[in-house]
């Protein structure tokens, strides 16, 4: 470790220092809300955002901790997305926790630490730092899920997540051990070369299998998705939003890094495995979401479906092998599509969960479809933004979700057309069919909002005004969803679809 290393840690320092500061300021015996603490948390995320802004565009990459962490374009994009999600979660939580009477300093500390873990995951270049990030993130999230400890479902969510999550961590560790046995190294970069060695191949295949299971668990892909609906439904709503987006960002970034080594070889069985996982995940998520009566639970299942769409892009990712042996994904449309999709999913999802966290009543009530009946006329603005978020998640043109889906399916078709192998195109077609299924349950939200009469005893009556934090998140997500959907490029204001795509491309240029 040298002073040079510390520079590359700058984006990580924000959440870290903020968490320590909150511990020092907020740690006292008398429990009570302290308005300073969320501001400190926001300052932490703001530090990271400013850091990303200052460092971008990054020439080359900075390594830290003897190459265990790597601050490159991908790391910066992960830091950007995670701190956006974390800041949104913090803003939502202020109102949410106040209404639940659990506005405690530990909440913000845990949000910051989980965000820190996500960033470390996205920046890691060896298994050890990956595990470190994964555990930092997961342990904080386990506690956050059970933060409303007087509510049975929150506690159930926490226990379920903890038990299944520790099992996944075990799988992950076991895979790490096998890979260490096979490659003799903890570095990702030694994986590709060792795969050719016939002697260590069985170890590596099994090891990658275990690791894959761990990853799939974290992103909630079928068949390892069983924990997800209960956990997402029971967790505090802002945390559900953060979990659904942040964990995906971190895990997919790490997967991209690992795949850039594995995909060096033309024919990898992993593609076929992922092909089936993408298909099953989409079908399971969409079909199960059809049957839900609670909007929050529906969004949980839809998050499984989104993990499936994202996995399509993982299947079709291709790139030229660079001079250092790793794949250069900067030319790959699919890899860029993943990052763009994550951005689109982040804004729409945080917005949707923001609206839900406002609508939610004590004990997690008030989130059934019926509770939305006629709401579009009562709260015009809330109805409008919730419809836009639902449409974006469904992938209707004009929203960011559409651009993301278009890129993912487009890249799959692009990868398949002109080759004898029709499986990629088939996967894209199946994905499009699946999003048609998804359209049904997203549109049910709109039907409830606008086509049903307001219930007489509407429980939303007399609801408090939307708090400042929640309002800020909802408005920002609303603007973002449309901004990155319409392509605000014609206004020439800068960060529209094209610049975002260029950023994602730059992010993938220096993976190794």
């Amino acid at each position, binding site marked *: 470790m040298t002073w040079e290393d510390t520079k590359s840690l700058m984006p990580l320092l924000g959440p870290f220092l903020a968490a320590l500061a909150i511990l*020092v300021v907020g740690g006292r015996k008398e429990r009570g809300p302290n308005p300073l603490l969320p501001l400190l948390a926001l300052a932490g995320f703001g530090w990271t955002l400013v850091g990303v802004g200052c460092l971008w565009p990054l020439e080359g990459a900075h390594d830290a901790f003897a190459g265990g962490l790597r601050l490159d374009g991908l790391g910066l994009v992960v830091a950007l997305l995670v701190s956006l999600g974390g800041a949104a979660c913090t803003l939502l939580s202020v109102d949410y926790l106040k209404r639940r009477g659990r506005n405690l300093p530990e909440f913000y500390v845990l949000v910051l630490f989980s965000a820190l873990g996500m960033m470390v995951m996205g920046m890691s270049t060896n298994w050890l730092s990956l595990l470190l990030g994964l555990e930092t993130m997961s342990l904080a999230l386990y506690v956050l899920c059970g933060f409303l400890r007087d509510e049975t479902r929150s506690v159930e969510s926490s226990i379920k997540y903890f038990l299944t999550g520790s099992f996944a961590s075990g799988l992950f560790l076991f895979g790490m051990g096998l890979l260490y046995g096979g490659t003799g190294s903890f570095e990702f970069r030694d994986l590709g070369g060792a795969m050719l060695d016939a002697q260590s191949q069985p170890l590596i295949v099994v090891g990658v299998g275990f690791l894959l299971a761990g990853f799939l668990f974290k992103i909630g892909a079928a068949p390892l998705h069983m924990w997800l609906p209960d956990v997402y439904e029971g967790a505090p709503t802002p945390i559900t939003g953060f979990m659904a987006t942040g964990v995906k960002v971190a895990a997919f970034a790490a997967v991209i890094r690992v795949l850039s080594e594995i995909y060096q070889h033309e024919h990898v069985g992993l593609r076929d495995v992922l092909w089936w996982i993408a298909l099953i995940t989409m079908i399971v998520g969409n079909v199960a979401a059809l049957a839900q009566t609670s909007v929050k639970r529906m969004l949980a299942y839809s998050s499984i479906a989104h993990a499936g769409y994202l996995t399509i892009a993982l299947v079709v990712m291709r790139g030229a092998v660079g001079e250092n042996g790793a794949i250069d994904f900067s030319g790959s449309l699919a890899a860029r599509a993943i990052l763009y999709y994550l951005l689109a999913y982040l804004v729409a999802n945080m917005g949707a969960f923001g609206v839900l966290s406002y609508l939610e009543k004590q004990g997690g009530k008030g989130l059934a479809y019926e509770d939305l009946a006629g709401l579009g006329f009562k709260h015009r603005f809330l109805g409008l933004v919730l419809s836009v978020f639902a449409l974006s998640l469904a992938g209707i043109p004009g929203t960011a979700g559409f651009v993301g889906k278009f890129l993912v399916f487009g890249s799959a078709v692009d990868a398949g057309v002109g080759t004898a192998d029709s499986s990629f195109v088939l996967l894209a077609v199946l994905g499009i069919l699946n999003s048609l299924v998804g359209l049904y349950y997203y549109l049910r939200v709109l039907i409830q909002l606008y086509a049903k009469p307001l219930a007489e005893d509407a429980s939303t009556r007399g609801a408090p005004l939307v708090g400042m934090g929640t309002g800020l998140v909802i408005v920002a997500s609303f603007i973002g969803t449309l901004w990155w959907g319409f392509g605000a490029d014609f206004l020439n204001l800068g960060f529209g679809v094209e610049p975002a795509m260029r950023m994602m491309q730059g992010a993938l240029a220096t993976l190794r």
Partner: protein
Amino acid sequence: MEPSVLVSLLIVLGLAAAIPVVMVILGRAFGPKRPTEVKYSVYECGLEPPVDARRRFTVKFYEVAVLFVVFDVEVAFLFPWALLFKKSSGFLFFGEMIVFLGILGVGLFYVIKRGALEWE
């Protein structure tokens, strides 16, 4: 370190296991053996033990165990650092330890301020 050091440690371990065994065997050989039911019951100030002894105890002890894990691992991590301190130079070596201790110090500060160590 010569290998004989490890071998002799092993012999000491054997000795450490053997001495108590010999002592117990001697005790058995010289001591009487007159079992009665009362003698072999659990000591409870002359009463029949009303409940089994193995019951739940307060969560405070678990807190202590968690704190022990945190700080004892810290101490174990610091040993190599302390060993190399004399040979090292420069403030970075010192600074790294300060950062490490600082993080744990903030944690300790929080735990104390939060009242987690109050033993009601």
